[in-house]
């Protein structure tokens, strides 16, 4: 009856945070220079786009769906950004065009999923091929970005106390996380996302706008993907159809490792952030080690995913 409940609700997220601390602790103990503020800052700098992707993906997975198109939409966004800038478009127009494309793709996929009652897996798989194909329609080559303003934003460093620097990418990613948290936890739309993911037919019978939410999460994910594409353009300073291959799976992995149930209804945006940080730390650990192939990252991620999904299953059964 009394509120002893929250700890159990937050347990998966806390576990992920604990895992992050543990991985970071191991790194700090074994390698000189690991335990520095800049290493942490670099985690954010190198994964800003993934943090944004994970935030959007959290909406979709919470509603009980999945979005496989996000990696391709990132690639398409870098392509549109790079070729738009090369054609001499002003930066605000490029940003607007990219976000519009992402949101529209998401809207289309959401509508198909809802109207025709098709598995999100298939629809977003189609979206993934479509977006990837569109990249090569624009150019089969890698297009580098030479725009002055864009390069300035990309290389600008924000000085934090303690000599640590971050990029604007990090600021944007954290703003997205904050906005996502507000929408998911404080608005009717957000709570309906949870309701739909928890029990869709109940949500319908409760008279909640389930349809709007089911389409809406894909629009949000599309928007986040195109924003992540912009961040990726800033990070790589090029547009290429083979950018971000398989990144949708990294995003899904981060969200799941962050404790969000693939079945929907349970999870937090912060979990996705923690998941990204865990993945980033493992990558950093392996690069500090030096002798290990970077593919070890994938192996560790695979094992972690299995463990987390097994833990989730047992929790759901209970």
């Amino acid at each position, binding site marked *: 009856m009394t509120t002893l409940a929250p700890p159990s609700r937050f347990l998966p997220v806390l576990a992920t945070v604990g895992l992050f601390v543990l991985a970071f602790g191991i790194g700090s103990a074994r390698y000189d220079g690991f335990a520095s503020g800049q290493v942490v800052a670099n985690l954010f700098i190198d994964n800003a786009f993934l943090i944004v992707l994970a935030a959007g993906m959290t909406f979709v997975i919470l509603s009980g769906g999945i979005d496989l198109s996000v990696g391709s939409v990132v690639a398409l966004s870098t392509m549109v950004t790079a070729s738009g800038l090369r054609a001499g478009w002003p930066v605000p127009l490029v940003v607007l065009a990219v976000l519009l494309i992402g949101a529209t793709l998401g809207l289309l996929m959401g509508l198909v999923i809802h109207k025709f009652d098709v598995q999100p897996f298939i629809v977003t798989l189609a979206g993934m091929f479509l977006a990837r194909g569109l990249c090569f329609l624009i150019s089969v080559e890698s297009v580098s970005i030479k725009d002055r303003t864009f390069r300035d934003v990309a290389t600008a460093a924000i000085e934090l106390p303690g000599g640590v620097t971050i990029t604007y990418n990090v600021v944007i990613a954290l703003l997205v996380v904050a906005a996502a948290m507000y929408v998911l936890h404080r608005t009717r739309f957000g709570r309906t996302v949870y309701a739909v993911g928890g029990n869709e*037919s109940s949500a319908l019978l409760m008279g909640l706008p389930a349809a709007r939410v089911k389409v809406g999460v894909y629009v949000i994910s599309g928007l986040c993907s195109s924003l992540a594409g912009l961040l990726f353009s800033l990070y790589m300073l090029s547009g290429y159809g083979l950018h971000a291959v398989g990144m949708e799976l990294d995003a899904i992995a981060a969200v799941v490792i962050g404790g969000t149930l693939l079945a929907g209804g349970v999870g937090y945006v912060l979990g996705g952030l923690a998941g990204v940080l865990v993945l980033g730390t493992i990558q950093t650990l392996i690069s500090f080690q030096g002798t290990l192939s970077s593919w070890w990252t994938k192996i560790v991620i695979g094992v972690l995913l299995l463990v987390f999904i097994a833990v989730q299953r047992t929790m759901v059964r209970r």
Partner: protein
Amino acid sequence: MTESPPPVVEMRGISLAFPGVKALQEVDFRLFPGEVHALMGENGAGKSTLIKTLTGVHRPDAGQVALAGEEVAFSSPGEAQHAGISTVYQEVNLCANLTVAENILLGREPRRFGGIDFPAMRRRAAEVLARIGVHVDPASSLGEHPIAVQQLVAIARAIAVDCRVLVLDEPTSSLDAGEVAELFRIMRVLRDEGVAILFVSHFLDQVYEISDRMTVLRNGALVGEHLTADVDRRTLIAQMIGRDLGALEAIEDAAEQRTSHGPVLLQAEGLGRRGAIEPFDLDVRAGEVVGLAGLLGSGRTELARLLFGADRADSGRLLVDGRQLKLRGPRSAIAAGIAFSSEDRKGEGLVADLSIRDNLVLAMQAARGWTRPLPRRTKDQLVEKYLKALDIRPANPDALVRTLSGGNQQKVLLARWLVTEPRLLILDEPTRGIDVGAKAQIQQLVTTLAAEGTAVLFISAELEEVVRIADRIVVLRDRRKIAELDGSTGIDEVVELIAGGAAPEKVVS
């Protein structure tokens, strides 16, 4: 109860047909403010359909629905809710992953600056819960609470809006006695506030305890509307079960003629399963039709499932041909020659997207084992034979089962088991929801099978049918076998027993 206030809900001449089934025929229904009105009827009588017509899930083919004198036509549950008709379903239709407060108020939550005002929401939820005297923390997550509390939260959600009509569709089926008492207390509070409550329950005791008025449905038609005080249980049950004799009398004669039966085929000694059915003894002889009579929830299906090994018994033993049989599951039962045709023919019996032929062949192949494939010609002959024998329509082996009417689906299901040539055939509600003609054919088939030496355990909610067809009737009440009667027993006596009029000790088979 006087009839002075006008009814808050008045449904007149409601008819609704689904493909192959007339779900409702010219049903009238009225609901007065400040009363608890029980909707009675066996499974398939049309209770849920009538409720769904009221709450906007279905639209009637004919007839009018009036709310407080004004004609209405809801196209969604949301619209009905908006007009003051709230429904609480048998299964709790809430989201266990949200908090209690969210479950009560989501969709009409108090807002501030575009976001949800959580403190205000918790306060509102606490007020609503206090109104019905339920004390749970609105901030706790719904899934932490037992089903009974979730049910009460569902009611809280229903009355959180201005609610004139509260529909409770079997709210008590998963509650224990104390929880039911709590629910009834809340229902009385709401009734005294002037809310009209429509209540569905299969438990007669509960209906008599709480309801002021009742409407009885049977086979989609209105049987009658009474004040609860005016009807005794016997009359009510007779109305629910029906006593319409008719085109089916010939079958009884056949039952009468079968006097000698074969050896005891199946013997249950003290077989039982906690929470499903108390230990019972039962003999079934070859060539005999044993009927199971009892109300819904009396343990009819549970008993059958034990004999088939679909559920595992936790006491007693089962003998087939005098030898003890360990039922490890349906497979071993099938191997022993026991077949079980489930009442849930869509869920547990047929593969709706396959053709008639494929459905029959599935069963044959399962019976033979996958190492001994059936030659095509044998298959065709068998399929042909059963299509003809059971008069399945269309007589096209390639028709998809999904497209058949309920009666013909039932026949295909029967055929599926018959091809395995079972020695004991358990039929759970084989005639539910199908038309009279198909019913007669199925009953005819049962008598034919018995004449050929197959033992049949026949379960039906329609007492008339059980009495007519069975050589012996086993009566169940409250998950207990209370009597075993001769096939010639009159229907009145059986009704008496089911209703609990006679003490079980006095009845001898």
